């Protein structure tokens, strides 16, 4: 007799109370362990790690298992954390520092970024510039779109519309630029990474 036939036979019989309790306990155990698995998984996805850049005096919590680049060849940022699993775009958070004069305000930096944008990014288009705050500091936030294309011409990669946010604050004679870029289609879904980052960043 096959095992499944045996189960059918057993199901047709009324089970003793102890058996029913044991079954319920077993099912509860399964559900609990499933829940535990999901919690562990979610915690893993939402986990953060503290990143400290002592040279530039910036500390923040970054998503765990994002790839951190603190030694860019072109020196255009001080560090960048990238979600290597992101499809179609590798979501990233980036911190840059530019030197500014004593009279500079965040808007001056935003204007410079706007001028540079079309030279660096394809189909660069600004959708909003707004004053905001980061902690106690005055900040300016710019939101824009551009088209990300694969730099390796030998790959058949479709361009991706990317939504980006640059948030600029002034620290003495430096402007700190916090950048978040993600595929436009998943931007809202993933923006919590950036919000978490901004809530924890110290500079």
């Amino acid at each position, binding site marked *: 007799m096959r095992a499944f036939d045996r189960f059918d036979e057993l199901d047709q019989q009324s089970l003793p109370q102890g058996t029913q309790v044991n079954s319920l306990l077993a099912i509860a155990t399964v559900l609990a362990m499933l829940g535990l698995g999901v919690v562990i998984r979610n915690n893993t996805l939402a986990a953060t790690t503290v990143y400290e850049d002592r040279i530039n005096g910036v500390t923040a919590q970054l998503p765990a298992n994002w790839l951190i680049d603190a030694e860019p060849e072109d020196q255009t940022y001080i560090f960048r954390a990238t979600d290597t699993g992101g499809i179609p775009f590798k979501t990233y958070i980036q911190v840059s520092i530019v030197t500014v004069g004593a009279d500079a305000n965040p808007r001056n930096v935003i204007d410079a970024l706007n001028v540079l944008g079309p030279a660096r990014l394809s189909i660069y288009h600004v959708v909003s510039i707004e004053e905001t705050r980061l902690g106690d500091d005055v900040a300016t936030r710019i939101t824009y779109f551009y088209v990300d294309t694969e730099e*390796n011409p030998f790959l058949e990669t479709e361009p991706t519309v990317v939504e980006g946010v640059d948030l600029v604050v002034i620290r003495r004679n430096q402007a700190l630029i916090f950048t978040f870029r993600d595929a436009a289609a998943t931007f809202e879904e993933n923006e919590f990474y950036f919000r978490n980052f901004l809530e924890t960043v110290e500079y």
Partner: protein
Amino acid sequence: MNKQRLLRIWIVAVLGLFATGLGLITLAPIPEQIGQAQDGGADEDEAESGDPLVVLNENNIKQATVLIMQVSDESGDPVIRCVGSGTVVTADGLILTNAHLVVDNQDCQADRIVIALTVRVDEPPIPTYVAEVTEISRGYDIAILRISNYLDGRQIDPRTLQLPFVELGNSNQVQLDDTLVVFGYPGIANEPVQAQLTVLNGLTSEAQVGERAWLRVTPSIPGLMSGGGAYNRNGELVGIPTVVPARVAGTVVDCRQVYDTDGSGQIDNNDACIPIAGPITALRPSRLARGLVQAAALGIQPGAARTSAESALFEEQAVFSNLFISTAINEAGMPANIVPAAPTGTSNLYLFFDYANMRDGMIYELRTTIDGRPSPIFSLPPVTWNGGQEGLWYIGTSVPQWPAGRYEFTLFIEGRQIDSLQFDVGGGPPGVPAFSDLVFGVENATGELVGANYVIPEGNIIRAKFNYRNMQPGSTWRYQWYLDGAPLGGDAAGTLTWEGTEPQGTYEDLAIRSEDGFVSGRYRLELFIQNSETEAFRLAALSDFTVAGGAGGANDAEAQIFSNFRFAQNERANVPLGIVSEGFSPGVPGLYVFFDWRQISPGTPWTWRWLVDGDVLIEENSRWTAEGSGQNYFLSLQGDPFLLDGTYSLEIEINGIILTEDVSAEVGQGQLPIEAFASAEGIQMVGNVTDAETNTGVSGAMVIVLDPELSVEDFEWRVSQVRAMAQTDREGFFQLPALLQRGTLEEPVLYSILIFADGYYPVSQDGIAVTDRTRSPLALEAILNRD
């Protein structure tokens, strides 16, 4: 508890554990799901044989071969004016090609250079980038381009480019009968890159370049492949196929109208056309390009030089004249002899001729027939001129044996036939009287000739010596000295009777004297022997030499022309400025070398070359344009943005004689950084990432290869620990931008790889071995399971 209940509890418990595992498994790599594809990895058979793996990585070469288009705007629309081929020689976008393909000229008036890449090797190239000329040698017809912009105008940071590239090989090691594979584009942007087998069957020498100025190949190659690359069996670039579009009476022979450039609505002769060059039988050896490539890679360019009055433009028609044949040349590029015919078995012949009113950039050509049949191997296809206005030139060819027959050499300038010479090869060694090996020197106190070269200091006596053979006593011969092309009078010409009794030997008694001393300039001595039967004089020997500078060195026989060399950081009004030293701190933007000179005639040909750490980077043949004597002539080098650490040296040469000694300055450590030149040696890793469920490619997956010997477990998610990373395309294909370093069979280099994609479990694997037997590209296959 009965058995059924126990069984049920256990099944449920196992299911629970499985579910928990699902939650945790995102943290755990699944190593066995990355594998090497069948055609990748180490070749076991070859590994066992122990022979070095010979790799002609055809796909890599094809992808490194680019189509070059010169483009101009006509009525607002871009129009392709000229096309040719080129080769990427560094990953950051330096391209080697022909100079005539990238400079604005009468056949090709364009304002930008567009680079088309072969994305798929079996399809025509796709215009992708705009490039700029960074180094050029019109005489060698070689240029180095740097990719600078995307087509939409966005600038490109070269550091972000990771293009397939090839390395230059040693063209001096190529031997006759070697097989070479030539890569290029045979069509006007409508055909894929093509590889064509050729055989090296001749070596052509040329004035100002010397031996191996051209590698001669058969069968011929389509003309549009000019600028591409010829590769040896190790996949190293050893030659650049070179030919310029042929002309007849100054007009391009083959020019194709493709675009309606005048907006008339029809294609006709009023529309601009794309010139098509004829078949290619000549390759420029890669050694002539090596310095330019290195200079471009280091960001070094020749900087300002002291400006002088340029020679006046001339309108007279360019001519070649006085054609003759020699069987050898000496170190000064002068004919060792002059022969009326050559015996069977001759392997080297050099066609010499005088030229006048030439301009650099003109196109000249040699067509040769043997017994009336065209002979491409002994011809020189249309190439650009770089010999300056006037002088003595030669084209020589070395083959195992010149076939017997009657040769006719015909020279053309801009498609116009200029002069020709008939010459016989065959029979036994000629027993005719002959002079050879003319050299010059000065006279010492005891009346002997001292020094023996082709740069003579100013003085009152110039002596010549030469070898002779088959001379009969009583035979008549004569000599004639020239200065700057004009025959000198007095004792500078004469007819003599041969008095020697030995049939062969060295004659040292020929001299020319001047009470006032000889002025600097370009001199020539011609020797003639009379035919006893016809009484006609035959040119038997000829050599040019230069008189310049004051006497110095051993026996006062060496010309002292350049002196007081000083290096400086800058100049103003022809005076050294900034630090003047032989050692400079790192980061200097440029170097100036100043020197004094004396007694050098304007128009004297001279060559200067810059070397870095002993390697020639930039060389230029020029004519002296400053006054006869003076101070603070300067040449300079500029870095972009600064000169790298290294030892920078200057050499000056006249008539093949180097007239400088250890003129060098150190910047920083005095040695180029080890990583100054990227290497194309290494393993390219490519692969496919596939969805296990659908068996289709996973788009956007991230492939990360860690630094050697770093395991996945030790990875701390820092880019500094990453050797290379790439993203898969829509087909799931990836190509790592950096090459993987090879190890050996005994000590392989071990790499770890991780692959991530949103919605899939990540996979990883340690211990991917790369040895000197690993075939490139190393192809990987990875399968991802959905989470």
